[in-house]
């Protein structure tokens, strides 16, 4: 596990720290590694940077709504980012452009170790949305279970059971593909 994803949320960001543009930017800088990973996993291909910009601007606009008691700045920011990602996916789908935006996550970059990871990626992409979310956030973005739970507004137990369901589903499909 990377220290960035694990340790960053432990620093509670106060409202005061978000009041000035400079300090807000500094907070953003601190969590950008995780934010970037989330955007690259959830935003349409090629749109990660746009989604991040939109999310950052939305966070700045609505910074008065951030409540440190409800969770970390990183969790709040990632939740906004997820919403922006889904909105962008919806827009792209409506415009019929989603499938044309594939350049920046090349096949080779997406599955660097060859067919094994590629097969996993395909199976993950086919999971129900909630299962895909927890798999992406836990295994690929590298967030701890507790933070995935906060992010999705569910309990840690539910995250663990959803992870188990998703793993079972992937295992089942893998077995099916290997025998077919």
């Amino acid at each position, binding site marked *: 596990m990377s220290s960035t994803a694990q340790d960053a949320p432990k620093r509670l960001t106060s409202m005061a720290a978000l009041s000035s543009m400079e300090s807000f930017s500094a907070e953003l800088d601190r969590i950008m590694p995780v*934010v970037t990973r989330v955007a690259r996993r959830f935003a349409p291909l090629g749109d990660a940077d*746009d989604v991040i910009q939109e999310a950052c601007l939305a966070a700045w606009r609505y910074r008065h709504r951030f409540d440190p008691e409800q969770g970390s700045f990183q969790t709040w920011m990632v939740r906004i980012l997820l919403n922006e990602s889904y909105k962008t996916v919806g827009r792209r789908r409506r415009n019929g452009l989603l499938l044309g935006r594939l350049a920046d996550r090349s096949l080779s970059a997406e599955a660097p170790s060859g067919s094994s990871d590629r097969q996993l990626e395909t199976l993950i992409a086919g999971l129900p949305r909630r299962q895909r979310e927890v798999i992406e956030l836990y295994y690929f973005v590298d967030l701890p279970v507790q933070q995935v739970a906060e992010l999705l507004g569910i309990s840690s137990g539910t995250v663990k059971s959803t992870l188990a369901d998703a793993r079972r589903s992937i295992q089942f499909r893998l077995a099916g*593909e290997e025998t077919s």
Partner: protein
Amino acid sequence: MDIDRRLHEAGQRWRESQGPALLPPSAASLGEAAPPHKWRKGLAPMAAAAAVAAIIFGFVSVHGATTGSRPLPAGSVTTPAPSVSSPSTEPSTSAARAAAAAVAAAEAARQRAVAEAEIARRLHKVTSPPAADCVASQLRPSLGSAGAAAGTGIIQILLQNVSAERCYLGGLLPLQGVTASGTSSRLIFPGDSATAYPSPVVPGNVEPGNVGAFWVTTELNGCQRGTRFAQLVIELSPKEHVQMPWLTDMSSGCLYAESAAGPFAQPIPTIP
């Protein structure tokens, strides 16, 4: 292998394959956040214009020089990049820094398609004028590469010219799926070919031993798996059909779009 461990390892490899974190908007641009989207509206055309300029002013040549792995066919006509000096990449303000980051992202996003398009353009140049249309006996089909990301699958299908004669390949090739019992169905792609994976090929001649290619994109989220046929039939013309075993990747989601076919660089370039 234990699926939990396998996912952890896949996640680790994915993280290691990613570049550095993207940059957030600068403090200055946050200050322009009202009215909404003002910052982005100003930057998007700038990024697009810079990307187009990069293409025009020989970005491909620069890229090719750094990777050094894109051999061109014998007799290729190379066009030297104009000696236009690009503006300094050292941003002097935070806004400039954000703009530079966006431009870099746009360039990265187009890097692959642009490089491949340039190869195809040069290949096309040396293979004109068109030869006779390819016939089924000349082409050997195979799966090139396939992958999935963000709910989208991409399948590259290669057509190698195994004859001693060059032949002309181009346009959208109708596809059919054939079941084990011999029933064939025309494959329907609801998406426009322009929304398919950006095909780097243009119509042209496929030299003996070289390959042609086209791409199929599938949507993996929110739809049931497609029919798993026994054979895939590629129609070069109403009477000329190339047949290959069905590609399981084409059944892992809904068929969405097919790109146009055309000659592809030989050897097949390593995608950066």
